[in-house]
């Protein structure tokens, strides 16, 4: 008897697989988010290089949420589609005064520069009264 095992096809399923993680907004836990992102990306047959890029981008997004300030934890939501991964990293609450204007915050420095360089699509919103949200998209085989 022949058996074949194939990866579940999510492409025909309009609902992506969702993995959520919440970490305290402190440096000690950024590594946890980084490793979780790597583990999830592995499920999608990303290359080792792409997985390394994702790890760094997710960590930088967490750093950004921590540095911008806010209240409470950093929420990371990974949508696993057949052909791409979409990772939303967000933290609510008013930004630190040093990031008082969204323009200042959204410049974001070296970390945000790296995220933009490593991901296929990036949306970065730093809204002084309500918080920080980064959406990172990486396509498979692009």
């Amino acid at each position, binding site marked *: 008897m022949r058996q074949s095992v194939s990866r579940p096809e999510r492409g025909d399923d309009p609902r992506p697989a969702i993995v959520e993680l919440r970490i305290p907004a402190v440096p000690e836990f*950024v590594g946890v988010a980084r490793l979780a992102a790597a583990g999830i990306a592995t499920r999608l047959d990303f290359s080792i290089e792409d997985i390394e890029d994702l790890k760094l981008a997710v*960590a930088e997004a967490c750093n950004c949420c921590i540095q911008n300030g806010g209240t409470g934890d950093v929420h990371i939501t990974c949508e696993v589609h057949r052909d791409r991964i979409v990772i939303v990293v967000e933290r609510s609450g008013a930004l630190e005064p040093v990031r008082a204007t969204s323009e200042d915050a959204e410049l974001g420095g070296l970390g945000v520069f790296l995220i933009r360089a490593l991901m296929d699509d990036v949306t970065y919103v730093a809204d002084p009264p309500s918080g920080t949200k980064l959406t990172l998209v990486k396509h498979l085989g692009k």
Partner: protein
Amino acid sequence: MNGAPAVSVIDLNGEIDVYTSPKVKETLSELIDKGHYSIVINLENVRYIDSTGLGVLIGGLKRVREHSGTVHLVCTNPQIKKIFDITGLAKIFGIYDSEKAACDNL
């Protein structure tokens, strides 16, 4: 002369991220405070570096340059080299494949 050796080498290993980079900064600052301005930082055993780690290296370079010194890096990990290339830092630091080459070119 302040008695500082011609070249000081810092060996780093593991992950240099937002959690660990303050320790790297402290080590680098102590060295510079003692008058060491020609520094080689060996990243051969570093498997990950983020923007906070890069920031510490940039800060160290800026400080030693004020004393006409410099920082050379030893880096063979392609992923880490890529980060230096993307950020343009490969042109700012001397990056070498071996500690000997990094020291010889200081």
